[in-house]
C-alpha cells in the first residue's frame, strides 16, 4: 500500500542521497529562474544557467550514489546526520558570504554593485551603491553570523537544549528554516504597506535646504522612483485592494508627474495631508454645513515644485482640493484601483501567513511527537504507567 498523498515527500528522510538530491535540485531550479532580462548581461545570465545545470547534475549524482560512507554512522551501522554541526557550518559560511556581499559586491570594492532601476521599473543598470542601509546591513549581519557560527562551532549543544528542542530531529530544522522565510516576507510586506519613502524624501529635501538651496532645487534632486513610491495613491492602506477597472487613467499606471505640491494657508504656514496626530488646520467638510476649517476660508493655496506644473500656484478651492487628494498629481481620473504596491503587499503578506502556519505546524509536530504518535514503548523503563 502506498503512502497517503500528504506524506509522499517523507521518503527523502531515510535516504540521505535523496535528501541531498532534492535540495540541490531546488537550488538548480531557483538559479535558472533568476535571469536578468536585460540583453547586456549575458555573462551573469549564462553563469546562473551554468550553475543551475551543474546543480542538476550534482543532484542526479547524489541520487544515484546515495550510500556514501560519510553519511554512515559506524556506531549504529545506519545513516545519520549531525544536525547541530550542519547548522554551525552553514551559519558560518552564510556569515562570510553576507559580509563579503556587503563589503565588496554592493559597495563596488570588488564587484559590480547591485541592480538599480528607473522610476517605472522599465530599465536600469548595475552600479555600485553607497546606500547606507544595504551595504552596512550585510556587513553587520555577516559579522554577526560569523561570530555566532564560531561560537556554535566551538561548543556542542547542551543536553537540556538538545532534548528540549529535539535537535536530533530533522523536522525541527524544517520548522526553523520556515521562520526565516516568513520573517523576510513580513518585513518586505510591511515596508511596502506602510512605506517609509515619504520620510526618505523629506530627509533629502531638508538636507538640500540646509545647504541654502531653494525648494525647487531640493525637489529636482529627488529621484523619480522615490517620488513615485511616495505617491499616496499607491498606498494600499489608503485605497483598498480590489477595485476593478482599467489601470490606465486610474492610479495604477502613472502617465506623468505634475510635481510635488506644497500647500500653504494664508499665513504661509506649510500644510500636510493628514497623517496621524498633527494639528488640523484645513479639511473638507462632509456636510453642507459651514466649517471653519474649510479650504476656502483658510485660504489654502497649492504651489508645485518640479514636474510639469513647476512654479504654478493655485488658489481656487476646487482645484486645491483636487490636488490635495494627491490622486491627481499623476494625471489620473482620481479613482483608486489596484497597483503594484497593492499586489506586492498582498502576495507577500499572504505567503508570510501561510509560512507562519507552516512553522507552527512542523514545530508542533516535532515537539509533541510523543503525544501525537502515542507513548514511546521504550519510555516504560523510566516511567511507570498505571500507578494512579
Amino acid at each position, binding site marked *: 500500500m502506498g503512502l497517503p498523498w500528504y506524506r509522499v515527500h517523507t521518503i527523502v528522510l531515510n535516504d540521505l542521497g535523496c535528501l541531498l538530491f532534492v535540495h540541490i535540485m531546488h537550488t538548480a531550479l531557483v538559479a535558472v529562474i533568476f535571469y536578468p532580462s536585460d540583453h547586456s548581461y549575458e555573462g551573469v545570465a549564462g553563469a546562473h544557467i551554468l550553475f543551475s545545470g551543474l546543480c542538476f547534475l550534482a543532484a542526479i549524482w547524489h541520487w544515484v550514489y546515495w550510500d556514501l560512507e560519510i553519511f*554512515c554512522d559506524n556506531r549504529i551501522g545506519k545513516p*545519520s546526520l*549531525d544536525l547541530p554541526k550542519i547548522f554551525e557550518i552553514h551559519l558560518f559560511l552564510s556569515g562570510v558570504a553576507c559580509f563579503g556581499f556587503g563589503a565588496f559586491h554592493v559597495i563596488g570594492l570588488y564587484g559590480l554593485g547591485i541592480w538599480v532601476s528607473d522610476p517605472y521599473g522599465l530599465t536600469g543598470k548595475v552600479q555600485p551603491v553607497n546606500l547606507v542601509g544595504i551595504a552596512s546591513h550585510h556587513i553587520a549581519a555577516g559579522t554577526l553570523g560569523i561570530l555566532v557560527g564560531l561560537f556554535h562551532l566551538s561548543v556542542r*549543544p*547542551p*543536553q537540556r537544549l538538545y532534548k528540549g528542542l529535539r535537535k*536530533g530531529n530533522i523536522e525541527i530544522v524544517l520548522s526553523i528554516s520556515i521562520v526565516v522565510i516568513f520573517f523576510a516576507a513580513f518585513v518586505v510586506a510591511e515596508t511596502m504597506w506602510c512605506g517609509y519613502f515619504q520620510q526618505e524624501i523629506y530627509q533629502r529635501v531638508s538636507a538640500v535646504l540646509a545647504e541654502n538651496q531653494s525648494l525647487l532645487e531640493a525637489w529636482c534632486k529627488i529621484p523619480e522612483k522615490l517620488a513615485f513610491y511616495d505617491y499616496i495613491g499607491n498606498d494600499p492602506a489608503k485605497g483598498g485592494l480590489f477595485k476593478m477597472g482599467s489601470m490606465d487613467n486610474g492610479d495604477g499606471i502613472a502617465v506623468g508627474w505634475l510635481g510635488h505640491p506644497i500647500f500653504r494657508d494664508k499665513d504661509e504656514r506649510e500644510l500636510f495631508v493628514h497623517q496621524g496626530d498633527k494639528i488640523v488646520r484645513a479639511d473638507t467638510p462632509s456636510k453642507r454645513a459651514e466649517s471653519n476649517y474649510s479650504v476656502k476660508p483658510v485660504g489654502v493655496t497649492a504651489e508645485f515644485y518640479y514636474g510639469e506644473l513647476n512654479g504654478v500656484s493655485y488658489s481656487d478651492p476646487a482645484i486645491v482640493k483636487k490636488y490635495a487628494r494627491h490622486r491627481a498629481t499623476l494625471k489620473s481620473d482620481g479613482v483608486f484601483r489596484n497597483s503594484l504596491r497593492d499586489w506586492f503587499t498582498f502576495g507577500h503578506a499572504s505567503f508570510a501567513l501561510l509560512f507562519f502556519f507552516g512553522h507552527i505546524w512542523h514545530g508542533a509536530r516535532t515537539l509533541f511527537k510523543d503525544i501525537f504518535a502515542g507513548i514511546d514503548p521504550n519510555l516504560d523503563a523510566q516511567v511507570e504507567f498505571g500507578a494512579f
Partner: protein
Amino acid sequence: MATQNVNSSSRSSPRRIVVGDFLKPLNSEYGKVAPGWEKTPLMGVTMALFATFLSIILEIYNSSVLLDEISMN
C-alpha cells in the same frame, strides 16, 4: 503481496569518496552533547544584549529615543 525478500550477499559497504574522507570528521559526532545547561546562560545573556541593541537602534531611527547628536529629519 508483491514484495519479496531477496537475500543478497553482494551488497557492498557504503561508498567512500575523496571529499567524504575529508568531511567525515564533521559528521561523526551525532548525538554528542555537553552535559546539563552548559553555556546556555551565556547564550541567553548574549541574545538579551543583542535584542536590547536592536531595540535601541530601532527606537533611535523611529525617533522614540531622542539623542542630542542625532536628528531624524
